[in-house]
């Protein structure tokens, strides 16, 4: 049979192998749980069933749709095909304005309503999230 040295080496190698497999499994699993999908208002309308997971909705803030009260902000995201109502309480970025691109992250209440937990607008007045750009180009 094999010597002690070889056995030890096999044991060691299989140990490493198992660790790697386990790590990959762990990583992939948490990846699956923690990714946030990006959707446009049109895609939400066409959803077969509502997801309970967090989503990011991107598009333009509709002109004249921002309404502010003391504890929340509501507005409409449009991709010029379909619209979705968004309500949000928290801090909005400076570039959040009507007629500008926006990405809202949160949970869908139904196909017409998003409870946003985070609003992302980028750092540049010319900048548009690529997702929004694409969504707008499709129209």
């Amino acid at each position: 049979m094999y010597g002690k040295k070889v056995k030890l080496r096999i044991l060691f190698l299989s140990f490493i192998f198992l660790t790697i497999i386990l790590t990959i499994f762990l990583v992939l699993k948490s990846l699956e749980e923690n990714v946030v999908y990006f959707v446009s208002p049109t895609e939400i309308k066409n959803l077969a069933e509502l997801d309970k997971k967090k989503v990011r909705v991107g598009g333009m803030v509709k002109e004249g749709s921002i309404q502010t009260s003391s504890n929340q902000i509501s507005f409409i995201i449009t991709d010029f095909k379909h619209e979705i109502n968004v309500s949000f309480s928290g801090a909005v970025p400076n570039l959040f304005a009507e007629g500008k691109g926006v990405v809202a992250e949160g949970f869908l209440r139904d196909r017409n309503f998003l409870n946003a937990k985070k609003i992302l607008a980028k750092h540049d007045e010319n900048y548009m999230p690529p997702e929004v750009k694409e969504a707008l180009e499709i129209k």
Partner: protein
Amino acid sequence: MLVSQLGYYSLILGLILSLGLLSYSFICLRDGNNILQKNIYSISFLQLFSVVLSFFCLIYSFIISDFSNETVYNNSHTTKPIFYKISGTWGNHEGSLLLWLLVLTLFIFLFLVSSKNQPKKYRLLTLFFQQIIISGFFLFLLFTSNPFSNLFPVPKEGLGLNPILQDPALAIHPPILYLGYVGSSIIFSSSLAALVQKNINRNWAKHIKKWILVSWIFLTLGIMLGAIWAYYELGWGGFWFWDPVENVSLMPWLCLTALLHAIIVLEKRLILKSWTLILSIATFTLSMSGTFLVRSGILNSVHTFANDPKRGIFILIFLFVLIFLSVLIFFFYQIKENDSQKKIFWLSKETSILINNWFMMYFLSVILIGTTYPIFLEVLIEEKISVGPPFYYKLLVPFLIPFLIFMAIGPKIKWIKDKFKKIRIYQIIFLVISFLIAYLIINKTSSQYLFTTVLIAAAFYLFFNTLRDFLRKDSKLSQNISHFGFSIFILSILFNGIFSNEISANMKIGDEIKFNKGLIKFKKIEIYKEQNYESIIASFEIEDEKKNIITLNPEIRIYNQPAIFTSEADIKSSIFTDKFLVMSLLKGEDYFNVRYQNKPFMLWIWISISFVAFGGLISFVKKIK
């Protein structure tokens, strides 16, 4: 204009010198001749000079607002303060690449001057590899991102610098970070040279460790400056968002930290040669791919200056050439490690450093996967996703517990072979005290989690151990300071995460809101006119439960060119807590969007990172003595 022309031709001269140095060092290597050695210094210095000259030409163009230069036109404006005119030089794609090139040429010159006691062939080879990188960057700069391209007719006014980049921390963040990034190029070239020369020995390890330290210190400080900037300028009150662009700077850092530890083993025991080389190559490759990902526009962020596919493709090809070259050399000149020395006893300093490396590699791969997975997914199945902070927390934080404990014990273990002595009493005391403190802290808060307790206990355990090691004679001061800093770093982050609280609301002038048994009052706003922006300064009174009142004055700046709002948070820092208030404008409404945060131990995060870097500095100073 004349100055732009001068800068441009100076760059071309630099490229010619680079190609000259390439062929020169090649000929020298082939013939093995020993003459003309002096020339190398002068040519290398001339190259450095030409890049410095062209860099100053660009700065000068920025200062005099020469809008016939396209780079200046795109990124500057006459009303901008002089300080930001200068820092705007490297606040854009072309200028920052010129800076990158400047550091590259500076470092190879310094390398040549400071490595006189190394074998000549090794130095020539390093020069050769480094010049390959340098000429690549010259070509990239001249053909895809010329900082001196002309504009005609000459515009009267420039487009202005993105206002959120007009900030002191951001003026020095790129140069410092680049010193770190580019320092890794010297490590890369020199490792390949040493490999080809079969020169990987104690002497080399000692010599290259200085360079590893230099780039590690600068990378650490550079990342910290970026984080500080994000903290007060982006107005979210956090300092790390697991944004892809932040991740790509963290990855080379992790790799470099692993290398910093591995090189010690190489120096002492002459083992782990291949591993050290892989780390050297990987560090530079990660730095380069970071540049690629950021500059190519694949990752969108404030760092993406322009999306030009040509640039992305160039860097990608360049990157592949370098990786291919290094892998080829790595296999061609494969090292045979000495078998008798190869064995590592399980309880030894070697093992403990290897464990550190394993952890580093794990952290690195998690971040790598989290950063690149969305890109692959989009290419493969056109699904758009983003990977959020929970992913990183879930996979990184649990592993911090064993990591911290190993970090506390590792440095005490002896080289080659150590024995299990009786467990010292003080170790048990430390462990008990750590758990006790952690328990008391967590118990006081509402978050009663076993996990957090263990994590804090582990951090305290490291804290006490490093504290005690300051008294031990055989401990290394530099290493101890860095580890001590790291323990404070982890503790501050944890306390910051657990004890932070915040409120956000939409407020009109005169409004009051309750917060934490205290009160936040919106007193008034004042409007001022500044050189290139209009500023709205608000006045808030924060009253805590003990009726102490502080005033915070957050500001909104409305820049004229480009027309952007930025929020300047007002932060009252004290030893124990930061009070952070930021507001933003809701267009066409009376309301201001206000966010108030209490962030404990914020200051200690910066102090502790400085400790970590300071440890590196001490080690460096000792080395050059």
